[in-house]
């Protein structure tokens, strides 16, 4: 990790934000200010999502790949849709739907940590509105039962 964490450090105006993907129900960029850039895939990363390997700083996602591999560095970077071959939806054993991506014929489960970077595709991914239809947890059941907007002056 970085050795330049000083109490005086303040992000520059318009500083880049960490682009590492995180989140439990909804995958989203980290959002913290970036302090480093991954030597492999070049995406900006915050201190928490940066791993030091020798003299190089790489992102947490690339650190889980073999040393000679990295996320794609096309002109669109790690969000390049050409990286993703297919998307599939499967039903987990407890009937909760889980979706995952096929890469080079290899299926990865949602529990696979390297999979979480695969859900960042803005073109192929399900949206938050679709998640409500799949998720049977109590909070989202409540939301799913309230399809009417702008009818509650006491909402939040």
């Amino acid at each position, binding site marked *: 990790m970085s050795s330049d964490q000083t*109490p005086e450090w303040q992000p520059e105006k318009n500083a880049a*934000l960490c682009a590492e993907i995180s989140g*439990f129900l909804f995958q989203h960029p980290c959002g913290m200010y970036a302090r480093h850039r991954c030597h492999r895939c070049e995406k900006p990363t915050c201190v928490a999502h940066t791993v030091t390997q020798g003299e190089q700083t790489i992102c947490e996602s690339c650190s889980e790949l073999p040393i000679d591999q990295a996320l794609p560095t096309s002109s669109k970077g790690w969000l390049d849709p050409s990286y993703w071959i297919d998307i599939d939806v499967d039903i987990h054993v407890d009937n909760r739907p889980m979706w995952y991506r096929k890469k080079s014929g290899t299926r990865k489960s949602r529990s696979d940590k390297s999979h979480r970077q695969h859900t960042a595709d803005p073109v192929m991914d399900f949206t938050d509105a679709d998640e409500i239809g799949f998720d049977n947890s*109590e909070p989202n059941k409540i939301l799913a039962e309230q399809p009417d*907007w*702008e009818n509650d*002056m*006491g*909402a*939040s």
Partner: protein
Amino acid sequence: MNNDVAPKSFLHYALGSGLGHLTRQFAIARSLQKQTAGKFKSTIVVNSEFAPVVTQAIAHRGSNQIQFETLPSTCSPTEAENLLARLIGVKQCACLIVDVFPRGLGGELSNCFANHPDLPKALVARNLPPAYLQQFQVESFVQKNYHRIFRIEPEAPFANLPQTQLTFPVVFQSADANANPNPAQSDQRRILIVGSGTPAECQALRKLTAELKSIAHSDNHGDPSRLYEFHFHGPTLPQSNDLFHWPLVSQLAGYDLVVGNAGYNLFWETQLAQVPAVLFAQPRKYDDQSIRSKLNWPMPAIEIFDRIRSKLSAASQSTGPTLVRNSIDDLTTSILSLLKSFD
């Protein structure tokens, strides 16, 4: 209601339940007061069920420069629209600042804006459901009507609009936020359970406090080498022995850990104060709290207690400053520059 005519006034539209909208707009009003040396007044329109409790709590902290106009929590969109129209005229409104809901909770702002196209308008944007944005074509409405949009979290919409700025987080700036009003003794660990959200959620957190106290005293689950002290803070029973400081941010530094709901303010206030937090994502019609916490409510008290111990243990080993800084002054500076552009 206050019918005084003020020379110029910011009008803050902070409708919504709970304490979040009210607190954030008060924080913005206070920052504007500081930056303009009191040149403008601020009027904050609220309909929170906790508004009467807050106005009482801030009696010693507020000034006649910042005033509240309170609607009933069950008010209709028409009542809100009528009040807003009256205040825009009576208060010599210099700028309208809308919290989170671009069209109003009942769509009442669409009519109001049609009658005041030249009034400077700023939106403080938090995350909103994509389905709602799509159904009401909110982005188009925002682009047409708002002169400045402040996205106060990365998940907020409207990122592609030219008048948008990313300014996060935006929370109350307390002058004494770094002070420790309640220094712990020896190995004592002070845990604050914050009652927020709906009244029912506040009560549930108050009940949780009692359960955690009981667990901590149990020989099977307590750590004999440390004393856990639990305090409940909430607006439910201000006349009782419950703590209720408003705003809360000045008190956070005095605690080793905070337990509460994953609303915007508590999440970012604990981040800025570098106080570990165990926060629960509560269901909300418009706010996706799961972007701030993976924990759902309810959760057994014993499990919460274990999480508290784990967090305290992890916190004692971590080093390094927070990478986040309060951007509230950036937001208010931008509002003032917006006003200058209208002169």
